């Protein structure tokens, strides 16, 4: 039964997309060859459908009945209109050798891919957040204002496309929808080759893309990279058609595809400037006005782009979250996180960028996946720059490689890969046998059993042929337990944690298989702060054992401001407590005091809460001019300011400024004295109490997470109790009190 539902879900999703696409093509009066119609319709229709589902999510009507009812109505309309039948002219027949090779490759790899896509979804990101978010939206019947997961802020057109198949056939049906793009993309490439009278090159490139190990693995998963590449290639494709037909309808279709590309993945925004530049170049060359066509494409694309920007602007306060946080400041993503993330994504596990060519083509372990050794011929694309007719292919290859240095994972080459494949195909197909031979070699080298012969031992690749799990003849749980290390504890979490309680963890878990609210430490500013609280209890350098004292003549003050004077790119500035004293006694903090800080004004209260495990931190590199400020509504008499600080920061120059009752500003002190204070006892319990106060009820920790051993050995001192354990992962319930037997 599940197999039928999976297939039904996938077919429904593809059918709806094709119907909407063909409707659009008909209305826009676009003329395509028979072979092109389904693939182009599928991509355009997917863009339109994702936009519709976005609307449904916004108005919170995501119910199984609504999705299926709407899909059924669309499919019925398509059937009545005869959209399932192909019309129009055909391309000239493919050369026999290519036809046979394509058929063989499609059959062999198709069965392999189908088996993997229909098996339970086990991809790291698919199981963690792509389908995790789909599950959350589905349960909430629409969008949730998620501020604790950066991935919820990325554009999610693919998640919108997953909704319908997920409603019918759950996780595997969603993965099958991505597989549909894996079928559409090579088909489009093949058609493109035929359209430009390079059928052998098209066939060659289609095989390169369809078989490429990382593309296959990505395509069978609930990811979005192949869909993104398909949308980008459709823009490129329609531009080629537009050059031949020059209709406004094509411009509209180009706008839809370009907007859809961004809606799938931020980095695909380049599809829009590429389209605009191509149109402008051609219009200018022909001496025609270009403004209206450019406005049309931009306007249509914006319709699909804007919803995601607006959603982020409302929820996060940064339309392009989780990026550009230093410009578009917001409380939900720290600048330090973004910088760290970018640094990591720019290198992954490689020591030098010279490793990239071999890693992404043949090794596949350090940059997660490989395209296949034939892609080492990609520089051949440069040869096309000299040919005006083929130059767009080379330019597209180069343009869509531009974002790659920001994230050097092999997957991030997928948008450019079709263009490189075409370029290699065009050059190599000048000798037909060479192209056939290379395509065959690529197919053989891409077969999962062949990859270990040349790739790194731990290359990310398809593993096995799980046909029993694809047909669901064996329990899904068995496959999930085998393939996802944290699946077992995820199931335990759902059993142990009551509804409405929140779990904090340090790593992703397959949230797609859980209903519990789970916060991953690194995925938000909230998570950063929670993890920092936990670490402040046990990492000696993070404990507030440093004391900085500013002495000044006793006086009445209306405001004090502590100003940082030091620039340190590698360090944050943080303050655990700022205490105002008079005559040796702390001045009682009054509810009507007003606190300010720059940067990070959202956390300033953490320096005034009397907790040694919380601290205000700049969460960005320390810069001169940063400040903390306290404004008193009534004058306060003081003669000393004490800062309690951790020793994970270099002492820097600070100035303490004061404002008297007349509003005059003075430098109270710029020569503080430094001393050490004894670390306080009971920080572990204080951390647990603080986590509880911030709405965390459970802690999930792996043996490789810092603090695992400490919590395991000193559970009672933390005020926690073990709630579940699977392998080397433990779930603790936060109690906030020390059991009697642990007390001395």
């Amino acid at each position, binding site marked *: 039964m599940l197999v039928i539902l999976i297939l039904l879900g996938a077919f429904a999703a593809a059918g709806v997309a094709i119907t909407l696409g063909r409707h659009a093509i008909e209305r826009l009066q676009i003329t395509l060859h028979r072979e092109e119609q389904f693939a182009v319709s599928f991509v355009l229709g997917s863009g339109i459908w994702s936009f519709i589902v976005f609307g449904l999510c916004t108005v919170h009507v995501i119910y199984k009945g609504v999705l299926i009812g709407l899909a059924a109505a669309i499919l019925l309309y398509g059937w009545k209109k005869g959209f399932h039948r192909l019309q129009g002219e055909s391309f000239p027949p493919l050369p026999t050798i290519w036809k046979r090779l394509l058929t063989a490759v499609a059959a062999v790899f198709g069965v392999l891919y189908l088996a993997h896509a229909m098996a339970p979804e086990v991809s790291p990101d698919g199981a963690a957040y792509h389908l995790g978010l789909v599950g959350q939206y589905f349960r909430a019947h629409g969008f949730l204002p998620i501020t604790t997961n950066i991935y919820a802020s990325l554009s999610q057109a693919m998640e919108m496309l997953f909704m319908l198949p997920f409603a019918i056939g759950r996780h595997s049906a969603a993965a099958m929808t991505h597989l549909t793009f894996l079928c559409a993309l090579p088909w489009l490439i093949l058609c493109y080759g035929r359209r430009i009278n390079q059928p052998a090159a098209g066939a060659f490139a289609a095989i390169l893309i369809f078989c490429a190990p990382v593309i296959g693995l990505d395509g069978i998963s609930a990811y979005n990279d192949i869909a993104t590449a398909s949308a980008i290639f459709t823009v490129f494709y329609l531009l080629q058609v537009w050059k031949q037909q020059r209709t406004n309808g094509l411009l509209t279709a180009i706008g839809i595809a370009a907007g859809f590309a961004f809606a799938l993945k931020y980095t695909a925004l380049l599809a829009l*400037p590429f389209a*605009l530049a191509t149109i402008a170049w051609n219009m200018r060359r022909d001496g025609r006005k270009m403004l209206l066509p*450019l406005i049309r494409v*931009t306007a249509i694309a914006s319709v699909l782009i*804007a919803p995601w*920007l*607006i959603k*982020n*602007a*409302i929820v*996060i*306060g*940064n*339309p*392009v979250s989780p990026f*550009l946080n230093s*410009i*578009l400041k917001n409380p939900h993503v720290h600048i330090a996180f973004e910088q760290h993330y970018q640094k990591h994504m720019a290198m992954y596990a490689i020591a030098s960028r010279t490793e990239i060519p071999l890693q992404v083509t043949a090794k596949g372990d350090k940059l997660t996946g490989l395209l296949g050794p034939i892609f080492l011929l990609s520089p051949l694309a440069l040869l096309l720059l000299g040919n005006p007719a083929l130059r767009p292919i080379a330019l597209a290859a180069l343009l869509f490689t531009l974002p790659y240095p920001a994230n050097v994972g092999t997957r991030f080459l997928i948008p450019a890969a079709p263009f490189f494949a075409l370029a290699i195909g065009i050059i190599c197909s000048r000798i037909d046998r060479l192209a056939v031979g290379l395509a065959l070699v690529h197919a053989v080298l891409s077969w999962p059993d062949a990859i270990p012969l040349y790739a790194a031992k731990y290359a990310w690749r398809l593993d096995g042929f799980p046909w029993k799990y694809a047909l669901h003849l064996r329990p899904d749980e068995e496959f999930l337990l085998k393939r996802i290390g944290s699946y077992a504890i995820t199931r335990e979490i759902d059993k142990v944690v009551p509804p409405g309680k929140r779990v904090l963890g340090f790593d992703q878990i397959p949230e797609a298989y859980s209903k519990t609210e789970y916060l991953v430490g690194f995925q938000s500013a909230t998570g950063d702060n929670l993890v920092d609280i936990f670490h402040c209890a046990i*990492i*000696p350098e993070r404990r507030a054992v440093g004391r900085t004292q500013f002495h000044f003549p006793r006086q009445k003050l209306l405001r004090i401001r502590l100003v940082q004077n030091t620039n340190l790119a590698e360090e944050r500035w943080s303050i655990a407590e700022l205490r105002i004293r008079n005559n040796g006694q702390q001045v009682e*903090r*009054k*509810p*009507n*005091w*007003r*606190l*300010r800080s720059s940067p990070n*004004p959202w956390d*300033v*209260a953490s320096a*005034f*809460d*009397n*907790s*040694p495990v919380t601290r205000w931190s700049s969460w960005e590199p320390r810069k001169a001019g940063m400040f903390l400020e306290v*404004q008193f509504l009534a004058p306060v008499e003081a003669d000393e300011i004490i800062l309690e600080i951790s020793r994970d920061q270099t002492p820097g120059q600070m100035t303490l400024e004061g404002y008297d009752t007349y509003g005059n500003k003075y430098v109270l002190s710029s020569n503080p004295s430094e001393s050490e204070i004894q670390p*306080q*006892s*009971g*920080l*572990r*319990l*204080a951390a647990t*109490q*603080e986590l509880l106060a911030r709405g965390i009820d459970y802690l999930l920790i792996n*043996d*490789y997470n*810092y*603090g*695992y*051993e*400490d919590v395991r*050995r*000193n559970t009672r*001192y933390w*005020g926690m109790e073990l709630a579940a354990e699977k392998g080397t992962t433990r779930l603790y319930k936060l109690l906030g009190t*020390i059991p009697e037997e642990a*007390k*001395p």
Partner: protein
Amino acid sequence: MILRCLILLLVLLSACSQTPESQPIPPQRAALAGQDPPSFGGYVRMNDTLVADYLVSDVNGGAPTDSWRWTNKKPTFRFKLTKITGLRFEANYTISNSTLATTGPVVITWSVNGHILGSAKESTDGYRKFTKPVPAEWLLPNAENIVTGEVDKVWVSPNDGAKLGFIISDLGFID
């Protein structure tokens, strides 16, 4: 033109961000009521928060979050045991191919309070586990117990003369 429009759009959309003008004084946390656990026990991982308490000599420093550390020739550790009967000693470590290529096979000899517990000859690189029961009479209850893992050959850096033995992850006494 388009770029300008895009920047303008982002700026307008970012206006939704609610930067607080100021914040009030938060609720004050009560004085700490908790206790700290005893300083060290019978087992340690290199990313343990109290790892420094267990290290006596010949173990290189590392960041607090590092789960492994290089040893020198005779890494020495101390443990405090509340019970001494029925215990096994266990050490998890890694032999690096980069040092092994120079030193050739190495022998690591584990001793507890001066008693040789056993040796392991390591001819290939990779992860290793050494484990063996420890006679109760070798151990001291509620006192320091010294463990050494002496390696017969170390790799010596041609640049600075630094000596590397093996990579230790965790060790100690288990039931």
